C-alpha cells in the first residue's frame, strides 16, 4: 500500500500547542508542503515571531530562529544580506507585523528585500489573551474593546496588503484565507508563489493569510470559519494586490 498523504519532511513529528480550530496549524502545514515541493528545506532559515507561533521552531524541521516582537523583517534582512543564496522567510502575526513591527515590515518592503513574509491575520492578539489588534474589525469585541471596536475611539483596521501595494520595492502581495478547503488550496498556491519569487530573486513577497482564533473570538471552530467568510473578508477582501511577475 502506498501512502499518498504524509507528514511533510519540513514538519517535525511534534504535537502542536495550538488551540482546536486555530489557523496556525494549517498555515504551518502549507508552508512545510511548499518548502518540501520546492526542495529547499536544507537551505531554508525561518524566523518565528513573538505570538502564538513563537514555538514554530519546535514544529518546522529546518533552521529557525526567534526574533524580538515585531522585528522578524529586520532579522531576515540581516540573514539574507549575508547569505543571499538561502531561503529566508518570516512568519508573523498581526500584532507582530502590523503594530509593533510596522516600521520593520514597511522598510523591508521598501528596500525590496528578497524575502518571503507569511502574515497571519487573525484580527486579535492570540497569545496575550485576545486584545484588540491593529486588524480588529469594526464592531469586533476583544479583551480591550469590550464594547466592540469603535472608529471614533480605536480607529480603523490597518490593511497591510493595500498599504504595501503602493510600494515599488514589493514584488508580490496576496491576501488568502484558510477558512475552507477551497481557500486552503488557493492559499497554498499563493505561498508557493511567494517562495518561488524568492528563489527567482524577484524581491519582496508577502502573503496575508486570514486565520481563525476561535478561543479569543468566543466562537466554535466551525463558527469561526463562517465568521471569516461573512465578516472578516468584508474588511479584508481576498485577492492579489500586486504581482510584478505578470
Amino acid at each position, binding site marked *: 500500500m502506498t501512502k499518498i498523504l504524509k507528514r511533510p519532511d519540513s514538519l517535525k513529528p511534534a504535537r502542536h500547542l495550538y488551540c482546536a480550530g486555530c489557523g496556525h496549524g494549517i498555515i504551518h502545514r502549507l508552508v512545510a508542503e511548499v518548502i518540501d515541493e520546492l526542495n529547499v528545506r536544507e*537551505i531554508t532559515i525561518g524566523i518565528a515571531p513573538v505570538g502564538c507561533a513563537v514555538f514554530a*521552531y519546535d514544529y518546522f524541521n529546518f*533552521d*529557525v*530562529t*526567534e526574533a524580538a516582537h515585531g522585528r522578524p523583517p529586520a*532579522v531576515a534582512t540581516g540573514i539574507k544580506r549575508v547569505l543571499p543564496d538561502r531561503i529566508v522567510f518570516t512568519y508573523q502575526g498581526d500584532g507582530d507585523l502590523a503594530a509593533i513591527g510596522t516600521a520593520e515590515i514597511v522598510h523591508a518592503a521598501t528596500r525590496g528585500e528578497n524575502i518571503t513574509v507569511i502574515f497571519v491575520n487573525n484580527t486579535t492578539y492570540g497569545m496575550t489573551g485576545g486584545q484588540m489588534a491593529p486588524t480588529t474589525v469594526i464592531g469586533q469585541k476583544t479583551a480591550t474593546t469590550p464594547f466592540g471596536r469603535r472608529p471614533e475611539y480605536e480607529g480603523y483596521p490597518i490593511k497591510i496588503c493595500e498599504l504595501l501595494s503602493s510600494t515599488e520595492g514589493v514584488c508580490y502581495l496576496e491576501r488568502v484565507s484558510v477558512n475552507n478547503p477551497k481557500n486552503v488550496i488557493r492559499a497554498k498556491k499563493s505561498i508557493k508563489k511567494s517562495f518561488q519569487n524568492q528563489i527567482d530573486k524577484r524581491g519582496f513577497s508577502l502573503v496575508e493569510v486570514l486565520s481563525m482564533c476561535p478561543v479569543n473570538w468566543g466562537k466554535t471552530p466551525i463558527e469561526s470559519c463562517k465568521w471569516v467568510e461573512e465578516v472578516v473578508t468584508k474588511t479584508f477582501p481576498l485577492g492579489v494586490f500586486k504581482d510584478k511577475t505578470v
Partner: protein
Amino acid sequence: MKKILMQGNVALCEGAIAAGLDAYFGYPITPQNEVAVHMSRRMRELNRVFIQAESEIAAINMVFGVSITGKRAMTSSSSPGISLKQEGISYLCGCELPGVIANIQRGGPGLGNISGSQGDYFQAVKGGGHGDYRMITLAPASVQEVYDFAYLSFDLTEKYHNPVLILMDGYTGQMMEPVQRTDRPPIPAKKYKKDWVLDGCKGREPRKIRSLLMNEGELEELNWKLKKKYDKITDTEIRVETINTNSVKKLDVILIAFGVASRVCKGAMNIAREKGKKVGLIRPLTLWPFPYKTIEKLAKKTKKILVVEMNLGQMVEDVKIAVGDKCKVEFLGRPGGSIVNQDEIFSKIK
C-alpha cells in the same frame, strides 16, 4: 606600516573592518554620523554589507540576523539610539550570540545635547536592558585605542558568544589622532567553534536559536550557565592601566577615570607631580568586567582616591565597592556634555 591621521569614528570602522566585519547597520545620530558615512563607502568597496536602517531597533535586529549565521556584524549609535537597542542586546545575550555595539556617548538625559559625555556608564555595565545579563564593555581613551578595541571586540564577542560594547564618547569619536593600523590578518572565521550557526540544515539536524525557555527550571538553568560564562570573563578579561602607582610606598592621591576623562586626569597628575605630590592613576579599559581587585589593592597604599567622570557619579559606585573603608573616595564630575578640565582636578588633588 606608516601611521595615518584618523578620526575616532573612522578608526572604529577601520578596526572592525580589519577584524573581518561582514555587515554594518546604523541610523544617523550625532556625534557618530561619520561611522555610517564612512561605512557606506568602505563596505561597498570591500563588497560587504552596509544598510542604513530605519531605526536603531531595526539596526540591532539586523545584527541579530547576521549573528545567527555566524558572520560578523556591528552597529553603532549615540546615547538615545543605544537606549532603543537595549531589547535587542538582551536578546543577543539570552540567545548567546555575538555582536558588536559602539556607543559614542552624548549628553543626556532625554535628547540632551551632542557633546561628548560619560552618562551611559550605568546603562552599559549594569544591564540597560531586561533580565540578568552582562556585556563586555571596552572604554577607549584615544583614537588608537578605538581602532585596537574595535578589532579586539570581534575576538571577544566570538570567544564568549556574548555582545561587546565599545563605550566611546563624542570626543573620542570626533577627534583626530595618528593611528598605527594592524598588520594582523582578519580573525579566522573558524577560530572559535560555531556549532550553533543557522545556515540551512544541509547534512545536519535542524537547529533553533531562541531565548524563550518556558519549561520548569529551563530558564534558571540558562541563567546559571550564563553566570559561569560571566565568571570566566571576569577571571580572564579584565584590562586596566595603572600609572605611577608602583614607584612609591604611599601615595597622596590615586585618580581613577576611564575614556576621555582619564586623559584630562593625566594632565592634572603631571602638574601635581611636578609640584611634589605623589599622584597615580588607575584607568579601567574594561568597565565590565571591572578591575575591583586592582583598585582594592592600590586603595591600601593611598591616602585618598579621586574618581573623575563626565557624569553625576556612576563608576564611582563601583570604585566604592572595591575600596570599602581602605581609604577615602572623592568624586569630581561634570554632567550634561561638559568636559572636566585639569585645573579643576588639580585643585581637588591639593
